[in-house]
């Protein structure tokens, strides 16, 4: 029996996290109500001229550098013509002749050890709109919010051999691009989509088999199933002649678990690429190149090493933090604001992560800057804020961010206005302690008789009256002193 090898290359589309679209000033936000982030330019009306968004080029360069690519110092935008209702100008502006980055690689872990997956190129382009089909009325509506949203397409060489490698590759891309703040790269949100090019050949052969391309795969699980199905279909065709394989574009029906032909090479359109004369070639000088180079983040594994070896975190804490660039930024910010490493790590891994989880947010969406967390930790450590109220304050900061407001600079002042700070009035504490002892003389006596556990209900009663706003250490000392007096 012949052994077969699957040869896979990926084209991964990633939506860039810019504020505005690629060639107009519309907000980049495809989640909004349909057709609310549109203008004559991204609706394909005559008369508008494209003005390239510099931030898109910055992110394209960043992605190229993160993926070890050569950056083309002169990069151009080109026009790709085709008719489709979601493409209002009937052409897409993309990069065909001189993409921003070429010849890179990404290293993945495999059971056989590290493996380099070569990157052919990364190009920048605009997304198309979204079609919404209504099968009851047989109508189709078009939403142009996504039109002209900036994308990069990362084209790999056919270096992947199985679904595990594909998954490892996609995970690695995701991590690198999220760390570099290029994109959230979330398949479930549609900000990361993959086209899978696949062929099958006898193991050891150098020639490539007939290639099919599956478009717009939106989850790793679906990609795994599609690779399994396509591989089996190709082998069956080769071995049993069940069908003649042709180079074609196929769709994947994840519910049915089958792929279906969309268009063959013969019927594929000619895209008639040519340079867009309205966008001057973009020349990346040394100053620009160096600025982007200097802005690249440490890789997550470098940070992990640093947190363990130099900061002294446990492997558990260090790896929990380095799952997310936002966690790392918050951790480093909190330390810069004076927090102890262990405290900062705990607050992020336990409290921040808990709130994120409760609110259905990802770790990259952590809205609390490190400076704010550092101040909060200092308040708790200094006895000005109880630990419970510290958590309440953290929740309040999430609320502030959710309302779209800025996180306050001065956390102590904010905690004060929120009424969460400990009472600094010992007179008030003494009065509460006296009242609690007076209200429960039996428990007080039990403590005096040597039952130390009797302190707990008394302490709890005090906390309840004070609504948690006190330095627990001071309260405990006052309570013991008052009991010992009687």
């Amino acid at each position, binding site marked *: 029996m012949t052994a077969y090898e699957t040869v896979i290359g990926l084209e991964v589309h990633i939506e860039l996290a810019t504020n505005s679209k690629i060639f107009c000033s519309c907000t980049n936000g495809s989640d909004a109500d349909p057709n609310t982030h549109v203008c*004559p330019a991204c*609706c*394909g*009306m*005559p*008369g*508008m*001229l*494209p*003005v*390239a968004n510099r931030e898109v080029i910055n992110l394209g360069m960043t992605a190229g550098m993160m993926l070890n690519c050569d950056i083309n110092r002169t990069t151009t935008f080109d*026009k790709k*013509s085709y*008719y489709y*209702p979601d493409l*209002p*100008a*009937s*052409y897409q502006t993309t990069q065909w002749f001189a993409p921003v980055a070429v010849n890179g690689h990404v290293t993945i872990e495999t059971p056989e050890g590290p493996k380099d997956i070569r990157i052919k190129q990364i190009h920048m382009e605009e997304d198309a709109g979204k079609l919404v089909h209504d099968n009851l009325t047989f109508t189709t509506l078009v939403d142009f919010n996504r039109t002209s949203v900036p994308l990069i397409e990362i084209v790999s060489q056919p270096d992947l051999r199985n679904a595990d490698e594909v998954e490892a590759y996609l995970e690695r891309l995701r991590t690198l691009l999220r760390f570099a703040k290029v994109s959230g790269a979330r398949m479930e949100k549609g900000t990361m989509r993959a086209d899978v090019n696949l062929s099958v050949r006898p193991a050891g052969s150098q020639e490539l088999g007939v290639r099919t391309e599956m478009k717009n795969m939106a989850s790793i699980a679906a990609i795994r199933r599609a690779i399994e199905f396509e591989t089996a279909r190709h082998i069956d065709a080769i071995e049993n002649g069940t069908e003649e394989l042709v180079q074609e574009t196929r769709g994947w029906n994840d519910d049915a678990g089958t792929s279906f032909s969309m268009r063959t090479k013969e019927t594929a359109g*000619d895209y*008639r*690429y*040519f340079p867009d*004369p*309205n*966008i*001057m070639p973009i020349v990346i000088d040394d100053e620009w190149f160096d600025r982007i180079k200097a802005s690249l983040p440490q890789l997550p594994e470098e940070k992990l090493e640093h947190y363990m070896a130099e900061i002294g975190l446990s492997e558990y804490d260090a790896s929990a933090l380095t799952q997310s660039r936002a966690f790392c930024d918050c951790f480093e910010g909190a330390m810069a604001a004076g927090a102890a490493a262990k405290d900062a790590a705990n607050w992020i891994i336990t409290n921040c992560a808990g709130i994120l989880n409760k609110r259905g947010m990802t770790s990259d969406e952590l809205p609390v800057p490190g400076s704010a967390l550092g101040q909060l930790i200092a308040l708790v450590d200094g006895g000005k804020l109880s630990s419970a109220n510290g958590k309440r304050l953290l929740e309040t900061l999430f609320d502030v961010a959710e309302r779209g407001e800025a996180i306050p600079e001065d956390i102590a002042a904010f905690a004060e206005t929120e009424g969460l700070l400990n009472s600094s009035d010992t007179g008030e504490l003494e009065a509460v302690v006296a009242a609690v002892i007076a209200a429960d003389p039996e428990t007080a006596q039990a403590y005096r008789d040597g039952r130390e556990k009797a302190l707990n209900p008394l302490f709890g009663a005090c906390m309840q009256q004070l609504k948690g706003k006190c330095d627990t250490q001071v309260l405990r000392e006052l309570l013991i002193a008052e009991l010992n007096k009687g």
Partner: protein
Amino acid sequence: MSENILFISESSEEAASGSQLTLGLDDLILTKGMATSAGSKMLAGFKSLFDARVYERLHEAGCAVAGKVNIGEFGIDLLGETSHFGPVLTAEGQLTTAASQLLANGSVDAVVGLDVNGAQARAAALAGQVYLKPTYGCVSRFGTVAVACSGETVDVSACSTEVVQQVLDTLAGHDDADGTSLPESECARLKSANSEAAPITQVKVARGLLATADEATQQLIEAAIATLEAEGIAVSDTAPETDKLLSVANLAWNILMCAELCNNVNRFEGMKYGYHAEKCQSIDELYTKSRTEAFGSLLKTAILYGSEVLATNNYDRCYDKALRIRRLVLEALTEECAGGTALLLPACAKRAYSLAEVEANPNLAFEENRFTAPAAITGLPALVAGGVQLLGNAFSETALLRLGAVLSSANLAGKEA
């Protein structure tokens, strides 16, 4: 014979008292208030959501805009004959443009348009009017219907060089909304305030192109030479290599123009706005029928030609080669025009064109444009005055206009007889 339609839509606003000038805008320049049709059934009655930058600038400068001037479909024909609203004929029954007719009958002081393929340069030459196509990038194209973006520029026609300069003073300037717009300091070189512009002291005759013009046109050029020499301008011929490049400039321009046009008019598919074919069963049928019914035959020819030169199998030997020729022509002309030199050439091959003649050869615009393609393909400024064309180096507008004033007042057509 049907009546000439000169304005396809007219301004409802009263001209402000004390207006500087009364202008017409050609039908490729978008305005919110007046329909913009690009001379095409496809866009007949189309109202833009915004105003072109040139309209805003004219408005701010206190000019009154009388209306939108009839042009040929998407501005690519010989003399406006392909307009959805019909051709414009002179009293003598010769083809002209609506812009030239409006200038001739005194309805407007100037017409601002978008030059794509030289129609208005030819019309101005035939009518003895003044026409300027400025240096590419000095007047914003924001709000003009895109046809052949790499070469088209906003142009100005009037009866005198003074009015052209006055309009140019208003129009020239940088615009962030146009990615090909040059810096303000360079745009400012086109204005009358720019006193440092070197005068043109030498003129070179493009003999190769001249030889393809008719007898009367050649005589007109000879009359222009005599006038210039009398002014102390040295006259010589262009180098043979330059002539060779000039002889293929329009082949290259036809490739670039049609390719860009094909791509730019793809957006007009009958769905979102403009002409919408009825009773279609599918979206493909809607696209096909709308375009088949709304586009004229010259435009369809250009679309097919453009589509062909961009096809993957043809790209290198057509489009890419045209880009190389563009660079060579620009290098040659820049060298020829160095040191206060302008090229002298006709704007068209004859002194008059009839509608019957164009109908017999509908592609005449792709042949006659051999005289206007050198400016279109290089982006260099070209002036038509006294029936002849002067082409100069970038930013030589004020010098060209000064020389143009001499040619305009010399009555060359009278001398030629």
